[in-house]
């Protein structure tokens, strides 16, 4: 039999439900795998061995008692360390929260527990989700399982690397400007940013509240859909949560794989089709092949011109830091986390400034100051105000595009995984990694990245990005599953079979 840690989430759940294996055996296989390989990958900041085994034992007890198990019962998962977990450390990749044990569960955490998902631990990330390489983690970078000298993407590099190194079949990420999709692309895994408001933000530590969105990460489109359904849905504790039924994403994934995408209108975004500067040849090649593949599957390909998308990156780097500067004001050293300089002589305000200086890393400081700058009087209209107007234009371009196409496609990232250290102290170079993913966050609609091949020049994974209108997340899964099935047929084996042995 295949190693338990190589199974997909759907296969794992089925094997547990049928009694072929137990949830405890599955959890132990993954904990052993973590013990064996995570020293090299560093996908986890904290492994909750006891909690995982207790959750697994509960699943086995339910089955023994004849209870019906949910579709993901007993399936292990890596939870991004941005989500609060009662009794389990939550650091957000920051020194300022080192050792913090949250007194409450995020709604996503609670839903995972209710679905009997086995949370293995907390995955590494760029500090407060700010970054595209996981190098901004205060606890050291995560490494890409495809090449340990390279970045696994970010901010959710830990989640993506855990999947690609077979430490977990499922993971949770968050996507403010691409932090689910970009790590998915550079690790050969699947990542979905649901429609804004589709998954609760309660207990997900806020970075940029109008953009932040939690979502599923997996090794297959169907697994991502199963996880999507488990965590999505209205939450009265999040005022931005959408009070409407969750799109039927699992059904869409099954339909896409079985029925394909004949007749579907696929829009190729001219601005991101790889003609501009900075696109790697192998990325453009795999993307163009994917478009041809969709055409051969019966999709109608239309070219989409969305001129405002060229301004999404600068608009994002004004809006996100502005919201960040306000959100991160909560780290004042008074109620939780680090406190520095409380010696009786320093005032509360001085203690706050000393603590934030010691507790935040360079990128977080840069963004807080950039946001403070963009929001300050005299600059507000030219920067933040203007960025908000550009945001309107981007939404309008999407509206026009979705009149002509059911989904849009582009490469997820302009390049494959770059080397650790290469862009670490060059913010503008780092920001370019999210060039193609950002417009979706600004418009609040839905996006997916799935692997579409290896770039010939470096043998590293390339991601295909699919975008759908708000609350049409099911279209991502339909197209994603169809492309995934066609590629699997072409390749004869899943892309992750080519990951070097750790």
């Amino acid at each position, binding site marked *: 039999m295949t190693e338990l840690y190589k199974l997909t989430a759907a296969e794992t759940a089925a094997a547990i439900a049928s009694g072929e294996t137990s949830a405890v055996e599955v959890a132990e296989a993954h904990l052993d795998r973590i013990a064996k390989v995570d020293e090299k990958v560093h996908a986890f900041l904290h492994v909750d061995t006891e909690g995982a085994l207790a959750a697994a034992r509960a699943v086995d007890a339910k089955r023994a008692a004849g209870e019906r198990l949910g579709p993901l019962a007993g399936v292990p998962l890596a939870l991004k360390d941005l989500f609060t977990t009662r009794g389990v450390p939550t650091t957000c990749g920051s020194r300022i929260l080192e050792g913090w*044990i*949250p*007194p*409450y569960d995020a709604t996503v955490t609670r839903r995972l527990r209710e679905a009997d998902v086995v949370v293995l631990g907390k995955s590494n990330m760029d500090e407060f989700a700010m970054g595209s390489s996981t190098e901004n983690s205060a606890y050291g970078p995560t490494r890409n399982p495809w090449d340990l000298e390279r970045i696994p993407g970010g901010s959710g590099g830990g989640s993506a690397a855990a999947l690609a190194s077979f430490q977990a079949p499922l993971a949770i990420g968050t996507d403010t400007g691409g932090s689910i999709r970009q790590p998915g692309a550079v690790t050969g895994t699947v990542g979905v940013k649901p*429609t*804004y*408001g589709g998954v609760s933000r309660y207990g997900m530590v806020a970075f940029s509240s*109008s953009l932040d969105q939690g979502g599923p990460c997996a090794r297959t489109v169907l697994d991502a859909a199963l996880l999507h359904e488990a965590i999505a849905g209205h939450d*009265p*504790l999040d*005022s*931005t949560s*959408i009070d409407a039924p969750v799109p039927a994403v699992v059904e869409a994934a099954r339909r896409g794989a079985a029925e394909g995408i004949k007749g579907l209108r696929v829009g190729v975004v001219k601005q991101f089709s790889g003609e501009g500067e900075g696109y790697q040849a192998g990325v453009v090649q795999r993307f163009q092949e994917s478009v041809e593949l969709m055409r051969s599957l019966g999709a109608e390909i239309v070219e989409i011109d969305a001129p*405002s998308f060229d*301004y999404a990156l*600068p*608009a994002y*780097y004004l809006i996100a830091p502005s919201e960040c*500067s306000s959100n991160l004001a909560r780290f*004042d050293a*008074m*109620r*939780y986390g680090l*406190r520095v300089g*409380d010696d*009786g002589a*320093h*005032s*509360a*305000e*001085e*203690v*706050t*400034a000393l603590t*934030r*200086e010691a507790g*935040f890393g360079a990128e977080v*400081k*840069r963004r*807080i*100051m*950039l946001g*403070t*700058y963009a929001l*300050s009087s005299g600059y507000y209209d*030219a*920067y933040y105000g*203007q960025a*908000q*107007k*550009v*945001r*309107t*234009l981007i*939404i309008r371009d999407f509206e026009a595009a979705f009149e002509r196409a059911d989904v849009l496609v582009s490469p997820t990232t302009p390049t494959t995984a770059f080397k650790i250290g290469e862009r670490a102290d060059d*913010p*503008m170079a780092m920001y370019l990694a999210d060039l193609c993913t950002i417009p979706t966050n*600004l418009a*609040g*609609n839905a996006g997916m990245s799935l692997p579409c091949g290896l770039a010939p020049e470096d043998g590293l994974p390339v991601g295909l990005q699919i975008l759908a209108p708000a609350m049409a997340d099911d279209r991502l899964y339909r197209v994603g599953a169809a492309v995934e099935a066609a590629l699997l047929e072409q390749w004869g084996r899943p892309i992750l079979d080519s990951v070097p042995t750790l």
Partner: protein
Amino acid sequence: MSAITREEVAHLARLSRLELSEAELDHFAEQLGAIVGAVARVGELPTQDVPPTSHALPMTNVFREDVVRPDGTPILDRTEVLGQAPAAEENRFRVPRILGED
């Protein structure tokens, strides 16, 4: 490129409650200058009659009855919360002095 001076960074750091080091002031001045220069491109698009968007999807305020929350709603446990505070005293957060010496 919009240059950002060392003095401007020091001002931003004060507003942001960051006690930056001397070396950081120089380094961030250069980097923030480059970033601001790049993001200023948002000004190139004509936007005279374009309304700003703060939130992509329509938002309405959410209200609830002013009653004790139903069972199952997470309510923070005081002991658990204070146990995670940097300092606690008499069942409250203990904070450094707020007023100056004089």
